[in-house]
């Protein structure tokens, strides 16, 4: 029973919080879209939110936070490269 309790407190509850967090962040992103906000700062904010959401899904839902550094690094670098690339492309497009 102790272990089941363990898994509930270490897996389910954090994931529930992550789920709620994801919903909240999604509504922020949607709000920005809805108001058709643009510009560098806004876009960077959207990208950071996206990065956080990605890390939340990867770490908690996919369970990568319990794996070795290598796995987490691969996933994080994917998110950074994609997000960073989008940011760079955005800045390029401003000119």
């Amino acid at each position: 029973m102790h272990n089941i309790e363990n898994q509930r407190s270490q897996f389910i509850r954090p994931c529930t919080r992550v789920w709620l967090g994801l919903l909240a962040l999604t509504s922020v992103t949607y709000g920005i879209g809805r108001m058709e906000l643009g510009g560098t700062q806004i876009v960077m904010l959207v990208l950071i939110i996206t990065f956080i959401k990605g890390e939340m899904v990867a770490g908690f839902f996919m369970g990568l936070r319990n794996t070795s550094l290598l796995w987490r690094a691969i996933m994080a670098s994917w998110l950074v490269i994609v997000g960073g690339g989008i940011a760079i492309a955005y800045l390029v497009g401003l000119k």
Partner: protein
Amino acid sequence: MSTQILTLDSHKAGTPPGDLAIWFFIFAELLAFGIFFLAYAFARANNVELFNESQQHLNRESGAINTVVLITSSYFVVRAVAAIREGLSRQCVYWLGAAIGLGGVFLVIKLFEFHAKFSAGISLSTNTFYMFYLSLTIFHFMHVILGMVILAAVMLKAHQGGYTAEHHTGVETGASYWHMVDLLWIILFPLVYVIR
């Protein structure tokens, strides 16, 4: 009793949940989508006005709702994994069924969106923005279908009592793939629908 510790510990030992092979697959898929996302971003940089203009014709609401749908579906899959780790096959099946149902909702919403675009005469050749919008979302759409098929297979096996608290790699494998499908949409939505 010690089995629970084992399942949790096995993650600490280094490898992610599920079959290792699926993780190769997941990263290969992420690579493919990653390149596609970047291609979109840089194509946009060359044609900002067109992209901003065309983006306004997208149905942002259905994109946002679909994000919520997929996130929630992903969460249900988490619950399915949690259930099977406690050996609760029945609950596992229910949670998986709910997740697959939400996958279906995603598809239906998406189909409405596609229908609206196609009946407006929009196609892959309309302009670069729509080329990307359609191919990215269709490509993702097919992954949702594949993910649902995988989850359905897992659900069937769980229903037949094929998984236990000790042996449930299959559930984690399917779950990991489904989370990836979710993760991709989490990036796709702001990229295509929001950033301007």
